[in-house]
């Protein structure tokens, strides 16, 4: 029999995962059908083998059990192939290999964005339910969120939309090359979709922390109240920063990182 708390956790898993999937679908919506983006054999080979690898890693129990770094290796076989081709190109200086390197790299990045993103969102949802580790949850949440917002921003900014995987890969590389965070500036907090997603993930994360990690034997109320107080102080702080003309999110990142660090150091000394 599933308890109320478990139902709430399942609801949170689906709310957070669903929000990330919604952004992923928004990303796909900007693109033509993925199969029509496979214009040559390299793109097709990379896309279909990547899809197959992701399916195997997710559904086959033997593959599911292997360590995370090996999973990354399996999904990144192209990078090992690229190393070999680069070495071969150094010795032969054949321009065909130069083209092949570009094709593989861009197709792999674009294919990864299309295939690895939903795979990692599903893994994130499973880890939300199973993992006892809060660090895994929060770091995964922020990276998943960043990736999907980054993806949807890139495709929303590129006009006309990429017609094949290589073009998509080039767009991604172009954005990353300028600055990691640049891709997030196009579809910013003023966008309704991102705002809604941010809100759902913010509230979902708080509820998840309280439900799964924040309770010490009694009720959920006190931890929830404490985080709520933090949120209210955040609102005051952001209002103050706006009045004095600070970049609030830059200003916020400092106390957010420093306060726990100080506490940690203090408590280690006392121990």
């Amino acid at each position, binding site marked *: 029999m599933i308890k109320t708390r478990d139902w709430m956790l399942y609801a949170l898993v689906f709310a957070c995962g669903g929000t990330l999937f919604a952004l992923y679908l928004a990303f796909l919506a900007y693109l033509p059908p993925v199969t029509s983006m496979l214009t040559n054999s390299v793109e097709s080979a990379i896309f279909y083998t990547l899809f197959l690898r992701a399916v195997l890693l997710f559904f086959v129990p033997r593959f599911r059990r292997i360590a995370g770094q090996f999973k990354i290796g399996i999904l990144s076989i192209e990078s090992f192939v690229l190393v070999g081709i680069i070495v071969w190109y150094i010795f032969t200086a054949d321009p065909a290999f130069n083209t092949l390197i570009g094709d593989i790299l861009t197709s792999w990045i674009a294919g990864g964005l299309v295939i690895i993103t939903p795979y990692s969102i599903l893994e994130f949802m499973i880890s939300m339910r199973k993992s006892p*580790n*809060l*660090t895994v*949850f*929060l*770091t995964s*949440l*922020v*990276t998943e*969120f*960043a990736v999907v*917002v*980054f993806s949807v921003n890139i495709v929303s900014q590129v006009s006309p939309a990429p017609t094949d995987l290589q073009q998509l890969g080039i767009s991604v590389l172009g954005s990353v090359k300028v600055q*990691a*965070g640049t891709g*997030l*500036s196009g579809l910013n*907090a003023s966008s309704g979709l991102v705002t809604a997603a*941010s*809100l759902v*993930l*913010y509230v979902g*994360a*708080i509820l998840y*922390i309280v439900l799964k*990690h*924040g*309770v*010490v*034997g*009694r009720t959920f109320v*006190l*931890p929830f109240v*404490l*985080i709520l*107080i*933090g*949120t209210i*102080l*955040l609102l005051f*702080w*952001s209002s103050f920063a706006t009045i004095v003309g600070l970049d609030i*999110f830059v200003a*916020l*990142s400092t*106390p*957010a*990182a420093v*306060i*726990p*660090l100080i*506490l*940690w150091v203090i*408590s*280690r000394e*006392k*121990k």
Partner: protein
Amino acid sequence: MKLTKKGRDYLKATIGLAVISSLLGVKSMIALAFALSIAILISYAILASVTMTETTITIEPKEMRGFKGDEFQATISMMFKRGRWVSVHLSSFQLPDGVIVKSQELSEGVAKLIVKSPYAGRFAGIGIRIELWDALGIFSKEFQTVNSQFVLESLPLSLLAPVRATKPIQLSIGERSARSQGTSLELYSLEEYQPFTETKNLLWKKIARMPDERLIVRVREATIPEIVRIGLLDIATRKGEARLRFADLVCEGVGGLCNNLIAAGCSVEILSTSRELGGIESFLVSNISELGDGLMSFLSKPATQKESISQTQITVLSDIIVTGLLELEDLNRANPIAKKLSLLIQDENALPLVVGDRSTIYSGLEDILPLVSKVLER
């Protein structure tokens, strides 16, 4: 104050979230990191403000008395100032050596203790280790407190042993009726003359009034001492298991002696050294309940390690000395004791000793009835 395992994860997660979200520019997650940091800070401040002052520790019942091996239940509850803002856990209990304890946390700050002792004796004091967690479970804080009001009194099983009748010899002299025939001036009964009965006790006037020719004799009553004094001498150094075992055997031995003496009709006075008064402390017991009080009172005082006048006085005044074999290794002490009836507690580390018929070396199994008979025949 220290970080819990969960707290380390929590802080790492918050720092990781703050750093990664700052690098990636995910503003809502920076805000979440900020809110979590504030929550951690408040939670830390609340826990840091909780101290042991104005803390109430209640143990119910404070004093427990029963026979050794019996299990007793006690409930311990703690009330902290600002206790609603933190989680209180009674993490461990430390009881004196010789007490076996099982604990079960009933609710937050309330625990049930099940204690028992395989030794007879008095066990006082309980050490309680309390662990406080903040509301988020990130930090923990420990307090150690000792409650000296908690007392477990474990009575010897010899008090429950069935009493065998001891019949004093007829020549015994005492102040109290032995409820058996003897040599006192008091009349015990009239019986028919039997061959070899003392002829001076024939009641000739009674015989003359008898309708038949039966010979009637006067049977006199025996007497026993009104008070038998048992002196307890605990002078040698014993530690740990040896101390527990010695106290257990003293209780069993004294319990057995008193049980039989009280059943025979005597009162028993237990003599022991008094540290506070610097002299002799005595307890007069005439029933089993008073005996329990007397024994526990003796055991509640620490052993006097130094030779003192009061110990010599106890040796002189007592009818039976109860002491250990270790005490007899000092010849100056052993000689006066050898002249008395004594119950000598077997000490594992003591040298082998040959004793006369006045003494019984007691390891818990020996029959103490001969000693009882001897003291009634004095």
